[in-house]
């Protein structure tokens, strides 16, 4: 399903070039549950953005479902993001001054769904991500860090994507809540979704079946349980 060959990403900032990824190659099958670990600055987020079709690699190829992503045009990329991928950003990225529900429903805009269907799905996903019902109509700037994180997770689930990409989805959660979230991911995994998540905590990585470890933009190890 996901096939990467020699992915390299170089950030050019004036005179300084930062190589965030160096010739990374791997293969992820449909339905796998993968954790990506590694020290800060090792290129985890960069890799995830490329997998989410949000960033283009400097060189190398990325095939998703047999299609080379760099060959797709803007509209095809939009459809890909909307239909196949649910993305949880490390920086969450909610719409400011907008209610929780509207944030979660954002990916369903301009799709063939009615308002009540959208709200219904949004509420389901929020429940799944473990957010209290009393917060559904709060504005995004009236939430705690952990609540924002759960809204971001709910938004990633709303279009029922085949692939869920989550960049440190439990970074702001206490142990109990992060376990609730991880169990939700496990359940999605059992239902056949492909899940890739980044984490710092070995305990969270243990929920996954495969652990890819990055260091200095290169794969250090790739272990299946």
């Amino acid at each position, binding site marked *: 399903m996901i096939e990467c060959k020699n992915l390299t990403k170089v950030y050019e900032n004036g005179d300084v070039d930062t190589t965030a990824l160096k010739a990374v190659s791997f293969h992820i099958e449909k339905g796998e549950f993968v954790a990506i670990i590694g020290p800060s600055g090792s290129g985890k987020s960069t890799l995830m*953005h490329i997998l989410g079709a*949000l*960033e283009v690699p400097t060189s190398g190829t990325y095939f998703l479902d047999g299609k080379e992503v760099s060959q797709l045009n803007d*509209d095809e990329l939009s459809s890909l*993001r909307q239909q196949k991928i649910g993305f949880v950003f490390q920086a969450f*990225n909610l*719409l400011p001054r*907008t209610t929780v529900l*509207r944030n979660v429903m954002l990916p369903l805009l301009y799709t063939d769904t009615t308002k009540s269907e959208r709200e219904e799905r949004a509420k389901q996903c929020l429940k799944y991500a473990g957010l209290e019902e009393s917060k559904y109509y709060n504005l995004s700037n009236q939430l705690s860090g952990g609540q924002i994180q759960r809204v971001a997770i709910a938004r990633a689930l709303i*279009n029922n994507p085949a692939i869920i990409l989550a960049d440190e989805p439990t970074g702001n959660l206490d142990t109990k809540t992060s376990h609730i979230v991880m169990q939700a991911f496990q359940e999605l995994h059992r239902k056949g979704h492909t899940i890739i998540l980044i984490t710092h905590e070995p305990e969270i990585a243990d929920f996954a079946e495969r652990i890819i470890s990055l260091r200095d933009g290169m794969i250090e190890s790739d272990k299946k349980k």
Partner: protein
Amino acid sequence: MIAIDILQETFWSLSANKVRSGLTILGIVIGIASVITMVSIGQGAQSSIASSIQSIGSNLIIVSPGAQRGNNVSAGRGSSQTLTVADADAIKTEIQGIKAVAPEVSRRYQMTAKGTNTNTQVVGTVPDYLTVRNVAVDSGTFITDNQVKTSSKVVVLGPTARDDLFGVGTNPIGQTIRIKNVDFEIIGVTLAKGGSGFSNPDDSVYVPLTSAQHFLSGDTFVSSISIAASDSNTIASVQQEVSDFLMKRHNIFDPQLVDFSLMNQADIIATASSVTGTFTILLASIAGISLLVGGIGIMNMMLTTVTERTREIGLRKSVGIRKEYILWQFLSEAVALTFFGGITGVLLGWIASLLVSRFAGLSTVVAPSSVMLAFGVSAGVGIIFGFYPARRAANLIPMEALRYE
């Protein structure tokens, strides 16, 4: 579905960012309203001056006493007393192509009626004044030849003078007013002509010429002679003939030393409209500056929100919303703001011009062209600066837009 979503997103986005929307609208409102008000004042002044000049008569030539330049000292135009009733009579009998001639003695006096008083223009004249100055009688009669011959103490009121002395719409015929300790009996009221400002025909009272000379001015000179040419094409030649005739009559051979001056209506209109034209240009430039300031305000508002909006666009793209829908939403936001601001601005400008004409007594004309111009400029600025950054952001890769600072 898509159209409804776009409209709803527009609405939500505008109402979630009230300050941003409010300030943008304010910029547009100020720009448009000030342009409309300023231009309407200028155009109103222009048309009211033109129409009040038209209303003073038709094919009119006015002879005024000139400056006396005896020994190289000019005492100022109109200062000399050189014109007499005899001059007027002679012009009438000697020169062809003249419909009517009306000499007049005009001066402001304080006058009283039962318990009220006012200060207004008293015009001593002859019956032909009606023809020459396009004045009509509303009720009663105007001055007759016989009353001029016998210096009768009768007076015809202009409607504004009547309103001031006796109250709006009353019929004062038969009552008397006192001017300079002389009682004049009211025999008529003239029809309102409109017009405003200096020598308003509605705010004057008319007495027989000889009565004005005997009881008020105390001499035999006249302050001007109004001549109506019988045809608008002959005004210039009649004016020349009158000039030659009066020079001969006053024994003046050097054109530098003439003791009268002649002016016809076309000259007055040309002078006045060049003045009001300058005035309109002045107001329009003030308005243009306010439009510029308003436009820069709109632009600023749009540009200061670019960072936030670029990230928002990055986020929308990253969840898979197509570029075209994002652009439609942003365009629709910009259009909604400019239209809302534009309509408010037009209404406000219109109300402001009404207030100006009501409380400042200036007539105003809201010109469609100024509305279009003001609307066009603010809409253009709003849409270009609302839409252009959005289009740029929508063409970025989502992560680049999300990282934008």
